């Protein structure tokens, strides 16, 4: 019985089987024939083939079909199995995750301890001078006697540089304002410096 049920269902779904035997079974079995009906109706709805008048009735039919569906397509026993499986997965995963966190924390601690140890080593050899290659490109000595430029002085250098940029910018604007008068007076005399430039055009156009 279950096999024939599956057959009917599949025939309804893919709309392919034209076996007399299956049709007979569907017609004889009231349950199957109604299912078959519903599936066709659903198909019609999906394809927008249903006439307008049927639509109100159809919604109820679809609701019924949906309500009936789990008993045919998805047996309850399966659901229970999946749920059990899920529960087991969660149980297994939880301790693993905690273990991973614990392990990484331990790793960090080991790293921390190691770096502490290495720092302690430096104090043992106070006269040791390590040559490093800093970003600026010039090697600077690093030792206990050498004062590393701290964050504050770096900030100070940054502010100093910003101040310099600002001053240059405003002076540039100032000089353009003053410089424009010599251009307009047409008193621009080529200096010896300009002759060394790679431009002959500049000289020509100025003359």
């Amino acid at each position, binding site marked *: 019985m279950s096999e024939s049920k599956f057959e009917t269902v599949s025939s309804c779904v893919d709309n392919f089987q034209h076996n007399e035997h299956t049709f007979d079974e569907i017609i004889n079995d009231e349950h199957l024939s109604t299912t078959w009906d519903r599936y066709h109706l659903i198909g019609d709805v999906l394809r927008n083939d249903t006439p307008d008048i049927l639509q109100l009735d159809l919604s109820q039919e679809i609701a019924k079909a949906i309500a009936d569906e789990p008993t045919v397509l998805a047996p309850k026993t399966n659901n229970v199995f999946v749920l059990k499986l899920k529960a087991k997965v969660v149980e297994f995963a939880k301790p693993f995750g905690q273990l991973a966190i614990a392990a990484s924390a331990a790793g960090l601690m080991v790293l921390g301890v190691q770096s502490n140890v290495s720092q302690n080593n430096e104090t043992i050899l106070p006269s040791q001078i390590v040559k490093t290659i800093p970003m600026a490109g010039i090697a600077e000595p690093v030792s206990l006697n050498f004062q590393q430029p701290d964050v504050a002085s770096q900030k100070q250098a940054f502010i100093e540089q910003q101040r310099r940029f600002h001053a240059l910018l405003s002076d540039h604007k100032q000089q353009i304002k003053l410089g*424009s008068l010599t251009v307009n007076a047409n008193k621009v005399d080529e200096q010896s410096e300009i002759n060394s430039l790679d431009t002959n055009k500049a000289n020509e156009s100025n003359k």
Partner: protein
Amino acid sequence: MKLLSYVVLLLSISFSAVAEESEPAKVWLERLSVSLNKLNFSTSFVVVKNNQAQPYHWFHGVDDNGKELEILSLLNGPRRDILRKGDVVSYIEPELPPYSVSSQKISGPIPSILSGDISQLETSYDFISVGRSRILGRPAQLIRIEAKNAHRHAYWLWLDQHSSMLLKMSIVTKQGQPLEHIQFTHLDITDKPSESVLQLHETELPVLVDIPEEYQQQQLQWNVNWLPVGFKQINSNRHKISLTKQPVEFMLFSDGLVDVSIYVNASEEKQRNADFAKDGATLVLNQVNEGIEVSVVGKIPSNTAKKIADSITIKPPKVP
């Protein structure tokens, strides 16, 4: 009859529009120069750079005697006004007491060459007419001033189809990345000069500063051995930077559109790598090499600034 005149008007406008489009870019720029010198206009624009907008008012007029009157003022922050009466330009700024210089060009965000002789840019730049678009609610023609080599930025100008006035300007890298914009937000062209510029007649301008010619053309003990083709020396002097009181030796170069300042001074530091700062399209380079601090400022790409800075050589002291 009225309808007929409308039709004629429409036809003439569309005809002139067609004629304008086929005209070369240089004609457009020449017309812009005439407009900036001859028209009575009051206009507002914003300079957009570094994610900031600076609003300006700009008035220009020609009085009955043919004298040009001009006011350019920054509207945000401390007062920065530039006044011009014919050949005298006055700068009112927070950093310095007001002063006047003898010049026919005001030095503001808009390059002064646009109201001058554009043909002097032809050695270094190509003028390209690109296409039309809509700017400030008007049909506009896009003209590009493209550098002939990679050492400079390009200037894109949008000009009003009817008045040839500037409606928008962008400074764009050779790769097409915009650095700075000037967008006009309002433009009024009138037959008579506006009240605000005519008030300049009653205004007494600050004292004219007299800069001796020798001061601007001093012999300095260093050479700039490389500059992009087309740059000419405007002046060279020794002065103190007003904000830091740092004495410097200074040279100013210009190709007509772009100004490049070069500063050289002795430094306490022995060596420092090149550091860059950008203000819109304006680049500042600062480096110390063998105790000599070199700074380059101008609307040029960083590669160009670095090349200029590295080309500077100190003249050996003269053998007595």
